[in-house]
């Protein structure tokens, strides 16, 4: 490399030839591979409308936790939507069993999955119109494409790996609380989210703070999982979280999707690196 400036004409032709091969053959091979991987990933998300099998199939997940058996739940996932939920909650005070279920007519969209799916399809769309017939003319063009694809893939992955940090009033105001029939007791909050490859359900039990309470009221900020003692104001009431139950279940296809994301991101980066090797040469010629 150190003598590349002094490279002979022969060397330069070889380099040029190599770069041409990279742009014309290798890039397309990688793009094809990427597309295959991403198609596989998007199949996991069962894009509605694309499949011939009609509506996305339903999957049941039994949520549990090794530490506690106070909450048990069965959530039914249909593509990006929760179509059914059956949650059994053992109230710690009186050991009563509380049964929560979704309304029949409603579905709850898991926005994380929806966003991840949409980001993947955007990435596929970006790749789709660069088929074999398309000729890349510069390395920069490939880099730009790869950057755009990687942006979508990183966002897709981040949507799954980083659940939204919500404040308790935000959870209380979310549409999820209105999904239940019979409606959710006022001293319960429910949140469902994806964390990595897991479908997580948190149930917060609340109790009202007395207006003349000596406790120093400090509303809790946003968090993925609030801990007992977190306080917030809802309506005219000040509430405190007394118990938190978190149960989760691994969703196998989310795991697959995450692996696909990682692999395709690496593929993209490797292609970028290959192009970058020639970065010192491509400015010489208008390829």
């Amino acid at each position, binding site marked *: *490399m*150190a*003598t*590349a*400036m*002094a490279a002979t004409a022969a060397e330069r032709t070889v380099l040029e030839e190599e770069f041409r091969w990279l742009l014309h053959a290798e890039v397309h091979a990688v793009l094809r591979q990427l597309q295959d991987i991403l198609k596989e990933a998007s199949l996991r998300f069962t*894009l*509605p*409308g*694309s499949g011939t099998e009609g509506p996305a199939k339903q999957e049941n997940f039994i949520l549990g936790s090794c530490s506690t058996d106070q909450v048990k739940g069965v959530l039914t996932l249909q593509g990006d*939507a929760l179509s059914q939920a059956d949650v059994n909650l053992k109230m710690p005070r009186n050991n009563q069993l509380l049964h929560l279920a979704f309304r029949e007519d409603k*579905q709850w*969209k898991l*926005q994380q999955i*929806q*966003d991840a799916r*949409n*980001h993947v*399809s955007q990435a596929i*769309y970006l790749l*789709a*119109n*660069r*088929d074999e*017939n*398309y000729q890349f*003319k510069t390395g*920069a*063009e490939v*880099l*730009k494409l790869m*950057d*755009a694809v990687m*942006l979508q893939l*990183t*966002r897709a992955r*981040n949507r799954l*790996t*980083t659940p939204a940090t919500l404040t308790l009033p935000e959870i209380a105001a979310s549409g999820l609380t209105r999904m239940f029939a019979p409606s959710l007791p006022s001293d319960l909050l429910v949140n469902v989210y994806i964390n*990595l490859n897991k479908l997580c359900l948190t149930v917060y039990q609340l109790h009202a703070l007395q207006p003349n309470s000596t406790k120093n009221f400090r509303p809790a900020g946003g968090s993925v999982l609030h801990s007992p003692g977190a306080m917030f104001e809802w309506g005219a009431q000040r509430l405190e979280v007394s118990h938190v139950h978190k149960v989760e279940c691994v969703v196998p296809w989310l795991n697959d999707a995450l692996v696909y994301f990682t692999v395709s*991101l*690496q593929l993209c*980066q490797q292609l*970028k*690196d290959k192009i*970058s090797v020639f*970065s*010192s040469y491509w*400015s010489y010629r208008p390829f």
Partner: protein
Amino acid sequence: MKTSLQVVALWGKNAPPHSITAIMITDDQQTIVTGSQEGQLCLWSLSPELKISAKELLFGHSTSVTCLARARDFSKQPYVVSAAENGEMCVWNVTNGQCVEKATLPYTHTAICYYHCSFRMTGEGWLLCCGEYQDILIIDAKTLAIINTFTSSQSPDWINCMCIVHSMRIQEDSLLVVSVTGELKVWDLSSSINSIQEKQVVYEKESKFLDSLNCQTIRFCTYTERLLLVVFSKCWKVYDYCDFSLLWTEVSRNGQFFAGGEVLAAHRILIWTEDGHSYIYQLLNRWAQMGAAYKTFSGLSKSIYPADGRVLKETIYPHLLCSTSVEENKSLPFVMGYMNERKEPFYKVLFSGEVSGRITLWHIPDVPISKFDGSPREIPITTTWTLQDNFDKHQTVSQSIIDHFSGLEDEAGTAVVTSSEYVPSLDKLICGCEDGTIFITQALNAAKAGLLEGGSLLKDSPSHKVLKGHHQSVTSLLYPHGLSSKLDQSWMVSGDQGSCVILWDIFTEDILHKFFLEAGPVTSLLMSPENFRLRDDQIICCVCSDHSVSLLHLEGRRCLLRARKHLFPVRMIKWHPVENFLIVGCADDSVYIWEIETGTLERHETGERARIILNSCDDLQLLKPEPALSVTSETHKHKSIEQRSSSSHQLGPIPCPGLQVESSCKVADTKSFPTPFNVLPVKTKWSNVGFHILLFDLENLVKLLLPTPLSAADSSNSFYGSEILRRAKSTVEKTTLTIKRNKTASGSLSAEAQAKPLNDGLIQGNNAIKFIEENDIKKQKKTKSSKKKHTKASRKVDANLTIDTAKLFLSCLLPWGVDKELDNLCINHLNILKLQGPVSLGLASNEDHFSLMLPGWDLCNTEMKKEYSRVNLFSRKVLDLSNKYTATLPNHVGTPRRLENNCDSFEESNTIVYLLSRLFLVNKLVNMPSELACDFDRFFKTESMHNKMKSPGNDILHISSFYGYLRNGKNESHMTDADLPLLKLISCWRDQSVQVTEAIQAVLLAEVQQHMKSLRKTPIDSQPVSTAENGNYEMMQIPKKKEWTEELELQCIRNTSAPQTPVSPVKHDSNSNSANFQDAEDMPDRCVLEESESPGDPRHHSWMAKVCSCKVC
């Protein structure tokens, strides 16, 4: 970038890359606006003959621009909104390139529609946005704050595209959108305005599944009010708007992807593809095709069908009339649009923008017809243009900063600068070139040689050095002394493509050491922060493009650590001083922690934990006590910010221009050492094209220039002048600052204010002005310690350099060629050089939004095309404005002011200072924030009453004191009423939306004309200077300076005893008190000045005594 910074761009031969991702034509069909993947916007002027020429480049977004849209009723305000990938939104005024409003929301928009319903809506209207989030966001077009959303009750999802339907028939505006899953949804717009404003949830009225994916466009046919065109990537469909029944589906052939479409006329549509083709179809009615036979029955059938109670079902099929295409060397994807103007002077234009930066226009005939044989006709390209075309056409105009070296090198071609660094303390520009050589040159000379005529004289000056040591292109440079004063001033570090890092002595031009990193190209060189030291030395960190990081110890001439396990590009480098860790953040959000001493990888974390580690490092740095208040620590902080900000958006090494400029400007700003001149290298993403920006800090320039020449004549007076000027300036500057702060923390500030008994009387008005004084005091208290350094440092700056800077600045601003004689006078008497061609000036809107003119901007104005003699005239308007200004100029300015032919540099610089301070004032006035401007205007209105002894109220008091400041800032000899019309005039310009550049140029022209008029009056051969004249001249100088001192006194006097303001005496007292207090606070500074400059000047002491006596009361 501060608004007081004046910017001149030195473009090279190559245009910066501009990969168009969004394009639109403004409603007046005079401007094309494009957004690029690099993050810049470009304004192109479109002539009535459909000729394109690039005008300005707008910097502000740090990531790819995703969409553009009109942001106001264009006939009233020419505003356009742009949105970027990372959620940034900006509203730009496309006539002058100013950023009007900006916001960053956590949403990526892909389409924006402006909606305004004048009779039901207050405010400036809504921006309806869709993008990578569920449903539709409604954003206020003025404030860019989210108002509400349009919510879907059924299967909410991302929205791909939308359109607003104004239907005359049903008198209701609706919003039609298509989601990513292909669901068409309709919201009522006009009838839900109230509920939106009351923050209610608005659900869709209808929805229908369209059974196709990747919807690109949805358009309503306003001609028939019946048809709906929906373009998907693989097909386009026509629906009946009445019941959303499908009328026709056309599937794409030979693998083309449709990208959009538009309705041209009733039953005529235009469809375009991703690869830049477009097709015009006539939608034929099947009934009509049945021919005459049908026609005879048509009347009959029409009467029959409605009688049946059924809607007449339209059946259509498309017939291809015309098509357009681009040349074969295409680069995907194209973004296209169509502009349909029915009014006569306008054209029907189809336009497209390419990734390569090319714009193509097609003029679509009013009635497109196919060829006689029925086959489609090809519509030819009307115009096509790129940024590079602008650069090629006006190549003589643009001069890169080092182009003049090429002559010395070889004739083969100019050296391409691949990296550069400006060292303000030495005024050296270091440029690394593609062939491995490094030039070190005097930056000011280089800029002059590039811009000015007769610069060739400078070209031969052997002021530059050439360092030869690299064999490949130099990719990064670092001047360590600029970051930490402890390091050797002669050291410079450079890294090249071949992973070789060289430590140079720039004075002796020797190679001190060569480090071979054996990694990829060195993409950036960084230095460890002040608080991080390894055995008492700071270390250099090299980031290479093979994702490796190396640490170099300069003193020891050795490589400490080679960290090369990173899979993704390095985005962030953090230092852990306590445990000697190097923390590397990568593009995939993983974190690597390296132990510097042993060179081992301590930890590797991903995901949430990695984020926590990086965030905790932030805290760690912040928690560290600041090592005193030094220049370097501050620059360091900003350096790290720069790195962070540049890294958070794109992959490591290639800084995108907007960001780089922004952050490095901040670095420049925070230096307590005022540098009136700076050179910023700007690199562009995905290419090695770079250019330089010259920054002139008008404020610092005046500040630095003023004391030097005057102190030569009369040191004590000069101190008054400089002091007042300095304070005035800092006040005006702080005014903006206070207002900003008022917005955020007015509560706390006013609380603070109330705590001060001195200002009790002033508080009620809640006027921004009164904070100024307090701020002044506070700030001065705070910076007292650093001032000493400051003033001393400023002395260090070479006076000649400052004057040269000022001259270059004036050369760049002057409209040359308006008057030949004037030019010559300027050249002879001001000793400034003429421009080679028009300069690309810049305009800063706020800290990180600014615009730069492109080469050839001057030819955009069609009316100016004929006058070739004129160079650098910003616009026609300048001449008018300048005439107006001259008309209002008080008469006595021109008469006695005469320059002798053998004028010395002293007089010359005096004139320059005068001109600069004028410009500074104009700049401040025109840029004044609107709140202040209001007060100011009110002052003008009430001013007459004020004189007529009418009670002006509390506000006036503040304003008059503010006015006093302004006048101080002007530092002119005629401070009295004679100046008022000028101030009024300039404030009028602001309201008439005269651009800052126009105003500055106009005033400069007028002042220079005025000034030179006096020269013309004195015949050139009147060499023998009469003593009387001389005396007169002396008199001229002294009163001028006297006035400055008087001004200060005047303020006290006016407030204490001025009879014309019948305000309660309590208020007077408080005001004067505060003024005195301020003076008292200024005292230490003056002492410093005295010590450093003129010890034992008696007059100075007397002046101080005056202040002291004031202090007693």
